[in-house]
């Protein structure tokens, strides 16, 4: 799936010559059907790594291969296509479109794939039913609880049948009970659908439940716990 070596990301700081080294040579292999949690202090590069894995940004140096393709060298259109087809993104703040219903929000993930309107509606309804929101298709964001909104976001990430789910603090805005529900859902989907799930989390309770755990500190990644039979760094 992912083969990463010497990955760096440097941001321009506020000062003219100030550079922020967010990632300083990350080496890791993430195989198919892996479930990896990345932990680390705030500002040490967790979200940056997740964004690079999702093709939302470009690395400054190193190699980032997805299914053998070097993402760093891809054109903008190819990268957009890769995102549309392969990556499902779940955000901490849910990031739903406020004017669209739950069903329409899920449909937005199918728009770039050129799926017909009828099929879009069917698939979105099914995805929402799969996450337990079959009765809430026509509800707007404001009419849903935090947990329900995150379920809509999960449905949106899943509806395109991606290879990878990238989740940035997916339970960060939820209470404990809802957190457990959402994580349980992710675990179920991972197990049932054979997805690769990579998540960034501060939550140590979640960290304990994932098969593989990595930590980022000062832009460097180390594997803290290996999944049985997995290939580490």
């Amino acid at each position, binding site marked *: 799936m992912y083969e990463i070596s010497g990955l760096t990301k440097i941001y321009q700081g506020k000062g003219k010559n100030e550079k922020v080294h967010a990632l300083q040579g990350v080496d890791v292999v993430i195989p198919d059907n892996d479930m990896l949690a990345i932990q680390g202090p705030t500002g040490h590069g967790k979200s940056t790594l997740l964004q690079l894995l999702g093709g939302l940004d470009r690395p400054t140096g190193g190699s980032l291969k997805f299914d053998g393709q070097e993402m760093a060298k891809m054109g903008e259109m190819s990268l*957009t296509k890769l995102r549309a087809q392969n990556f499902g993104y779940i955000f901490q703040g849910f*990031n739903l479109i*406020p004017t669209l219903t739950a069903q*329409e929000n899920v449909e937005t993930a199918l728009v770039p794939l050129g799926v017909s309107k009828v099929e879009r509606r069917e698939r979105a309804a099914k995805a929402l039913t799969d996450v337990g929101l079959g009765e809430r298709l026509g509800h707007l964001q404001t009419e849903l609880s935090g947990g329900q909104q995150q379920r809509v976001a999960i449905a949106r990430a899943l509806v395109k049948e991606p290879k990878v789910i990238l989740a940035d603090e997916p339970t960060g805005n939820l209470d404990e009970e809802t957190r457990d529900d959402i994580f349980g859902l992710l675990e179920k989907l991972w197990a049932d659908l054979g997805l690769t799930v990579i998540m960034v989390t501060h939550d140590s309770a979640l960290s304990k439940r994932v098969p593989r755990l990595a930590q980022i500190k000062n832009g460097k990644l180390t594997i803290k716990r290996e999944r049985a039979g997995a290939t580490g760094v």
Partner: protein
Amino acid sequence: MFFTYLGRELRRRSRQALVIALGLALGIGLTITVSAYSSGVKAAQEQVLKSLYGVGTDITVTQTATRGSGGSQSFGATGQSQTGTGTKTTSVAQDTASVTPGTGTITSATLAKIDKLSGVSDAVGSLSLSDFNVSGALKQSVTQTPSTSSTSGTGGNSRGSGGSGGGSFSAGPPSFNGSFSSTTIEGVDVTNSATGPLSSLSVASGRALTSSDAKSAVAVVNSSYATQKSIKVGATETLGGTKFTVVGIATTTSSEDYFIPLYEAQTISKETGKVTTVYVKAASSTQINSVASEIKSAASGATVSTSAELASSVSGSLSSAGSLIVNLGKWLSIAVLAAAFLIAALLTVSAVSRRTREFGTLKAIGWTSRRVVRQVIGESIITGLVGGAIGIGVGFAGAAAIKKFAPTLTASGSTSSASNTSGGGFAGGGGGFASAASKANDITVHLTAPVGMGILGLAVALAVLGGLLAGGIGGWRASSLRPAAALAKVS
């Protein structure tokens, strides 16, 4: 998805969208009003030109009068008496038609030569005459034995437009007590009603002059003059000493009082085979200047004026209104439109900035930048079209207001550049008539502001342009960020 998303966003931001639409509406409405006003002024100018020079005339040819060549006048005296105080009284009654003073004549040979020029589609001549009617008594102190012969004199006169007046005329020792009146006559080619002064006549009662009237003593009277003088169809009017039957009353803004067949005009003025103006229609509008040059060569000494030159000779409040539109209206509408576009663009950019995370999310799930831009532009164009629709309403209201409140405009045009005052006087010397040499026509027109399909098309185009501009800038801003950067923005 495109229209669903678009509709929901516009509903969510309805207040802001309305502000943008109203801004565009103001700019578009003003542009429509100014354009309509401009069209109205143009139509008024065309109306004036049509009145002065006839429909479809591209070029007019006139001849500058040579000094002292004014039409000759002879006044016959009929009857005489002598008072006991030694004063001789001579009765004077004369009706004479002559070429309008200050105007030269063009021969039929020159007219034929112009008609045969390549590039000339049609050429028609007309003869402008002044009819002068004087009646009264000429008193003269008798210092010699009274003579029974008539008193006569020759001389030119020149005068302005029609009118009449009474009073005494003093010519030194002789004095004149009586009245005089003058009218203007246009001898028109009745075989050609498509070009020239005949084309500007609109018959209000009776009938128009036709080719069968070529050698008939018939006349069509200007309706304003007919009203003033209470002339009806069927009346008999004496022009140049000849009795003419009025066959029609016509509305025209031309200043001529009577329109009679050209042959008759030539006969009463003794200007056989001559005209004062040749109206030329070019075969195509692109040939006007070259045809004008050819005419200048063919008719040496003639004044050749193109329609463009004629238009520029139209002055007065109409011209002022035209200048106002060009100078003030145009820049005002451009300024308002530019401001409206700028405000629309700024508000759209502001709205898009608040949705940066939203667009970042869409890009993260695979929407292309082009799709995001298209969405923003779509919203802006709909806003622009709403603004355009309101703007059309504002424009119609503005045009209606102009129609209702615009003052009546006047224009004056001069059909001759010649200026000549012919000297002369009555026998006995001492007296003379002189007035404006050139034929100055004051035309009154009511300004309209027609809103045509072209203007409405312009409004729609401006609305779409405004939407494209605002949406393009906003969309570009939204899509220029990488998804990661867009998602990092605090909304």
